[in-house]
């Protein structure tokens, strides 16, 4: 038992653990929609595209999530606009804006003196540097994201599964599409300090993909995904403590390991099950 309790004597590790737990629970809820709608690339793009918003908010002393929200939603709108009005495909538009916004963010960041430290934290997270305020903000935003998903659960289900049904039911599809993007942007902010921009997609997609192998109802997929995510978060912090590796990658590696296990051994859907 001492190995479990040993790290807890450091308050910064306790805060890191709690932050990883929150991220592990919240990300896969939105991540489930990303997996089911096949929008991984958009998720990855938004994770990068919020960078200039975060840097600007940091410079101006605004709350970071506001900056991220403006940049994230702005990018999503721009991608939608260019795809609708132009003659290029959506994934090309995503690629253009994702790289462009990320470059803008790095350019803004490079004006700072401690540029490389900031950049490392933004890219890969800074889990053990989570302040009590950061933790509180993550918890509040995380609860908010989950509440909104609960409120509009049946509408998100319809729009994810069958957009044409959403049309015949006269659901405000555009509203829900943008609401999902806003939720995604907020989730990215929640996870930013834990895993950073570069590994964000893993927290969104990997636990949800593992849960997809194990369940056949959406709410179970979300619950199982959150359980896997939460476990990965906590286990990753311990791993990072004991074998002395960076905490963000450790969290992601645990989740990836769980995904591989489910891919091989999941009842009925797993590889071994199908070829036995």
């Amino acid at each position: 038992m001492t190995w479990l309790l040993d790290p807890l004597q450091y308050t910064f590790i306790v805060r890191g653990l709690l932050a990883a737990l929150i991220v592990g629970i919240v990300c896969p809820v939105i991540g489930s929609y990303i997996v089911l709608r096949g929008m991984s690339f958009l998720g990855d793009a938004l994770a990068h595209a919020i960078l200039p918003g975060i840097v600007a908010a940091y410079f101006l002393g605004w709350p970071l999530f506001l900056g991220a929200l403006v940049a994230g939603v702005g990018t999503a709108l721009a991608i939608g606009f260019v795809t609708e009005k132009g003659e290029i495909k959506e994934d090309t538009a995503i690629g253009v804006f994702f790289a462009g916004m990320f470059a803008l963010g790095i350019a803004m960041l490079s004006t700072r003196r401690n540029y490389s430290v900031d950049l490392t934290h933004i890219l890969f997270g800074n889990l053990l540097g989570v302040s009590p305020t950061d933790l509180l903000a993550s918890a509040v935003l995380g609860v908010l994201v989950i509440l909104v998903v609960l409120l509009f659960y049946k509408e998100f289900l319809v729009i994810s599964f069958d957009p044409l049904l959403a049309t015949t039911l006269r659901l405000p599809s555009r509203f829900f599409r943008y609401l999902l993007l806003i939720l995604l942007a907020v989730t990215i902010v929640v996870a930013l300090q834990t895993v950073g921009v570069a590994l964000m997609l893993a927290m969104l997609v990997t636990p949800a993909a593992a849960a997809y192998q194990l369940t056949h109802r959406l709410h179970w997929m979300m619950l199982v995904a959150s359980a896997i995510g939460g476990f990965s978060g906590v286990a990753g912090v311990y791993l990072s403590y004991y074998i002395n590796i960076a905490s963000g990658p450790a969290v992601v590696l645990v989740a990836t390991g769980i995904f591989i296990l489910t891919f091989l051994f999941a009842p009925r859907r797993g590889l071994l099950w199908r070829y036995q």
Partner: protein
Amino acid sequence: MEAIQQLTLHRELPHQPDKPALTLQDVCVRYNGSGAEALSQISLRVEKGERIAIVGPNGAGKSTLFNLIVGSLRPTSGEVHLFGHQPSGHICIGYVPQRSQIDWRFPVTVKELVMMGRVGKIGLLRWPRKRDWEMVQHCLERVNAAHLAHKQIGELSGGQQQRVFIARALAQEAEFLLLDEPLTGLDVPNQEAIFTILDSLRPDGVTVLVATHDLNLAAARFDQILLLNHRVIAYGAAATILTTPNLLAAYGGHIHLVHAGDETLVLADTCCEH
């Protein structure tokens, strides 16, 4: 909260009883980027309770026509009216998509799938009530699929998949039903099961439009046939419109008419891409 409530769909307009179920007037659709018209000068009128087969080669504009009726596409010119209003004024249009367009691995059970049809009536910020679940159960019974309620949709056979989607349209309380290739890939007993369900909708006055490749079934089981190839080639009862010139106009070189004794065999080679 009020702002959100206003987004709900209770803008549903009352049906005008003296108006036909569907009218299209000089409807043209031209997609951006391509000069050709997907649909050209379509005018037609469908009375309440009729069952219509829409027949034509691939790419004839059947999907475009369905999208117009559903309201997901606006015509470039012309007017589409259902029960006297634009499609967007209705939540009574049931749409059963082609089976190939559905993600069958999506994590929903049959019961949850059918409940999706209720989402419009339930309204925003509310959960399904007991009445809604009873409705779902009733609709599943109507399509003889109550025993499938707890299965994941990917576990169903082709005929069962088609039936539970019809149950979803029933749960939506659809008065106008569109079915996209519901018969393709089904064996005769399963096709018959679909027709039995469609027959059971007649007393309720549900109007049914079915896209199909099967000219024989279209001729035998429908009130009217719409022969479509970007424009209306012919529209009417099978006996009057299934003529050699009409079929040649609809299918061009893709059809073979074989005269065998007194009968004419129609061979269409655009059939069954699935």
